[in-house]
């Protein structure tokens, strides 16, 4: 059988695919071959240092890593931050998801078919508006450190909260006008799929949601997650994580899913439509902020273990920490890309492998990239 090697670029790095088969893909192995070793740096440092180092795993979803780190430490010390702090965290991580999805669709995915730089510019301007709102709360984006175990460092006034609410409304208008509307119609998405079959890239049809931040509801237990080298199993099977998995409860997404199953189209649609759902959710919770609550609750460190799981832009993100004498003894990160892009056998393929098998070789880029792969996260 003919074996091809293919390099996929523009996924914040590169991946190597070993493709078996000529016109139709018979089997595929996925390999990320760069290495940074972030977990090694953490050992023996003060536990608070993880808050500064971990966001540097990724420049696009670093804020989710920050939140996961803070929550893992909170779990270890048994701290519960105030509702106000939790809402502010939801707003900044929600906006991070929105800017990620915009950039992913217009900069990474769409140019596979449509090479139009004006669309890219439009996207960048909306995405940088979203990160401007994050900056109002967190100081800057990317790579801020305003989330700390026990709460947040910022102390917003009512005026600032009004301003943030106002900006969220403007952002929502822009998204609905320029990207995707509330009914789920997106001009750019339809243009993309004009000459692409909407049914390609069907995967394993098993969905997993582990985090329960935002409006998402988890459907799995953390104890059942197992990491073998870079492969991640749940209950000894592979599961797909990400926007399609966590939005299946929504009526509009469900309708698309019924029609196209877990195809490329459904995944891209869910990712775009999630922006509308998240911003509506943020506009709802910002009204519940009680400015008189504590920003931060003091904690006493002790020797302990903690774990956190959140829904990050690309799916469920898990952080585990072990603290001894205020120092990190062990740290472990499992990123969403590991769930989706594990590399295993033909009989038991990962979601991305299953989606690629039996597809035509010319569709390989589109099918692979529809998972919103982040190579820097994978090679952390």
């Amino acid at each position, binding site marked *: 059988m003919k074996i091809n*090697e*293919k*390099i996929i*670029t*523009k996924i*914040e790095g*590169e991946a190597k695919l070993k493709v078996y088969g000529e016109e139709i893909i018979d089997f595929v192995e996925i390999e990320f071959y*760069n*290495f*940074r*070793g972030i977990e090694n*740096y953490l050992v023996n*440092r*003060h536990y*608070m*240092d993880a*808050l*500064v*180092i971990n966001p*540097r*795993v*990724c*420049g*696009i979803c*670093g804020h989710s890593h920050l939140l996961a780190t803070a929550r893992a430490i909170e779990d270890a010390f048994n701290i519960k931050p105030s509702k106000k702090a939790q809402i502010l965290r939801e707003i900044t991580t929600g906006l991070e998801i929105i800017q990620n999805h915009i950039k992913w669709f217009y*900069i*990474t995915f769409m*140019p596979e078919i449509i*090479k139009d*730089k004006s669309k890219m*510019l*439009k996207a*960048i*301007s909306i995405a*940088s508006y979203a*990160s*401007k709102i*994050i900056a109002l709360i*967190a*100081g*800057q*984006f*990317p*790579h*801020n*450190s*305003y989330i*700390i175990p*026990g*709460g947040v*460092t*910022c*102390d917003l006034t009512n005026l600032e909260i009004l301003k943030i609410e106002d900006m969220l409304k403007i952002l929502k208008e822009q998204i609905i006008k320029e990207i995707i509307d509330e009914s789920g119609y997106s001009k750019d998405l339809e243009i993309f799929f004009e000459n692409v079959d909407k049914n390609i890239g069907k995967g394993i049809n098993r969905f997993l949601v582990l985090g329960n931040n935002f409006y998402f509801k988890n459907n799995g237990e953390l104890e059942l997650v197992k990491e073998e080298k870079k492969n991640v199993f749940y209950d000894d099977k592979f599961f797909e994580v990400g926007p399609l998995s966590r939005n299946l409860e929504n009526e509009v997404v469900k309708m698309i899913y019924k029609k196209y199953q877990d195809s490329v189209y459904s995944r891209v649609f869910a990712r775009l439509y999630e922006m509308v759902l998240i911003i509506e959710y943020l506009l709802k919770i910002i009204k519940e902020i009680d400015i008189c609550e*504590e*920003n931060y*609750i*003091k904690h006493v460190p002790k020797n302990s273990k903690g774990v956190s799981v959140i829904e990050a832009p690309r799916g469920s993100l898990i952080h585990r920490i072990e603290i001894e004498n205020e*120092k990190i003894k062990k740290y472990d990160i499992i990123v969403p890309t590991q769930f989706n892009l594990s590399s295993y056998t033909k009989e038991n393929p990962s979601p991305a492998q299953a989606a690629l098998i039996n597809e035509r070789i010319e569709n390989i*880029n589109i099918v692979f990239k529809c998972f919103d792969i982040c190579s*820097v996260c994978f090679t952390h």
Partner: protein
Amino acid sequence: MKEALMNTMRKRIEELRALPGVGEKSIKEVLEENGFTRRDFLKWSAALAMTLGLPASFAPVVAEAAEVSDRLPVVWLHLAECTGCSESLIRSDAPTIDDLIFNYINLQYHDTLMAAAGWQAEENYEEALKKFAGRFILCVEGGVPTKDGGEYLTIGAHAETGLEKLKRSADKAAAIIAVGTCSSFGGVQAAYPNPTGTVGISKVLNKPVINVPGCPPSAKNIVGTIVYYILFGALPAVDNFNRPKFAYGLRIHDLCERRGHFDAGEFVEQFGDTGAENGFCLYKVGCKGPYTFNNCSRERFNQHTSWPVQAGHGCIGCSEPDFWDAMAPYEEPLANHKFMSVNADAVADKVGLTLLTVAGVAIAAHAALSAIKNPKE
């Protein structure tokens, strides 16, 4: 003096004007198409002149220089990093003249931002290197792993190591700019125990490298350095870590909005206390502003919106060499822990530690003294 400077710039601009542009359209045309008036453009130029430390009367020349900037293409190379610096570049004023000029026209090759991918992308890169040899500005994002022949980072189908690709590209570049702390000093990859042997790019090149550190650096500093090169045909004045003085000439502490509280001995003792509510100085919860040279307190981030200290978290010192080791622990004052840190031995040979400690002791002494003297307590 001023006139001599102006003449140098004009001469440089004339030289550049004689070269062909790299895009299909001129910068003027693109700006007009995207609805920017001449006035907007001049305002932007004036702001940039200020960033570069030039008098306001230089704004028209800066504008002229920006108009011919499409003669000098920019090639962007990714090494071991997180793409945060590219993120930083595209968050500059939206939808922005910087964006238009640098992403739309000049940027001949950028892994993440360009439209091409795969084989085509590699071809584009080689073509840009060949076509613009000796003329392009090479921006490098990310540190370069050197251990085991650099095999921890390979790029493209031929598995060329980052080290080889960097050396090859740098040979043909007119100017080399290290964007971010990783490419300047190694960054987080080079933190103890540095498993991949990552170093800043200047360590492996034998050409001058301008460092624009920060994690991530502000978009204004990146764009400012590029425009400086276009304006003068030379690299800007730098400090002893090769950082442009216009951006890294002062400490964060010097222009910090909370500086008054430092001088008055008013500190946040722990996050969430009354001091934090009143916006007091963050030194005692780990702010490294007094040891860090950068312009964050003046320029801020995300279109001048805010910066970490405004959001109540201290500066982590991200534009200093080896800050990952030298500035840790990040949430405590440097002077408290320096000699007890487990990694102190590991970093003792690294640059700046002694200097930092001396300054640290003086500043800590002030913090302690002013707390005693504070009449409120």
